[in-house]
């Protein structure tokens, strides 16, 4: 029984850590000069990635 509690605590702790780091990462300002950093989607064929979805519609997809 004790092990199950530890398992739940570890899983919950890791989920919390991931969520906290995700939020902290998104709240961290992007360094100067990197504001308009754009993925080089012309060199990538991953059409379903989150970065490509940020590209303006109508842009030709290569790959």
């Amino acid at each position: 029984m004790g092990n199950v509690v530890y398992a739940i605590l570890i899983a919950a702790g890791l989920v919390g850590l991931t969520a906290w780091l995700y939020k902290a990462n998104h709240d961290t300002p992007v360094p100067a000069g990197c504001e308009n950093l754009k993925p080089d989607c012309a060199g990538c064929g991953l059409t379903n990635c989150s970065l490509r979805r940020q590209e303006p519609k109508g842009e030709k997809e290569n790959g």
Partner: protein
Amino acid sequence: MNLLTLFISALLVNNIILTHFIGMCPFMGVSTKLSSAIGMGIAVIFVIFGASVFSYALYYLVLVPLGLEYMKLITFILLIAAFVQFVEMFIKKTSPQLYKSLGIYLPLITTNCCVLYVALDNITKSYSIWETMVNSIAVPAGFMMVMVIFATIRQRLAGNDIPEAFQGNPIAFIIAAIMAIAFSAFAGLV
């Protein structure tokens, strides 16, 4: 196991892409330009090394003493996701130049299956901490090496007159198959 043997084995003989077919998604997707392949390769080395060492520590210092070895899969997945977020935030704060070159690739690595593969492989094969560190450098180095070779070939192919039916991914898969055959010659090296 001798560390040099392990390094050569992970780098060439048991190359993660050409013998295990793991990490094929970025291999096919991010290899049409050499600069993208290099950026992705460096980011993968960085993340795999860190995630593997942390996973190793979590497994042997927390999960094994508590008898929770069955939780390694879920904990490693969460640890990798958390680690990638931390690395991205750390690079944002400390090195804008590094962020400029790697930052765009870091979110993509969270879903790269070779990160999880290396973390699990180190545990499955009962590697020591030193073997874990060597393996965690050699495997992504092999990944990067093949990506760079492949990107170079694809860039050269772009200017060639390829039959329409073979353009794009079909010719890429044929090249990958030829590369896999070529790399199989390393089999007797160690």
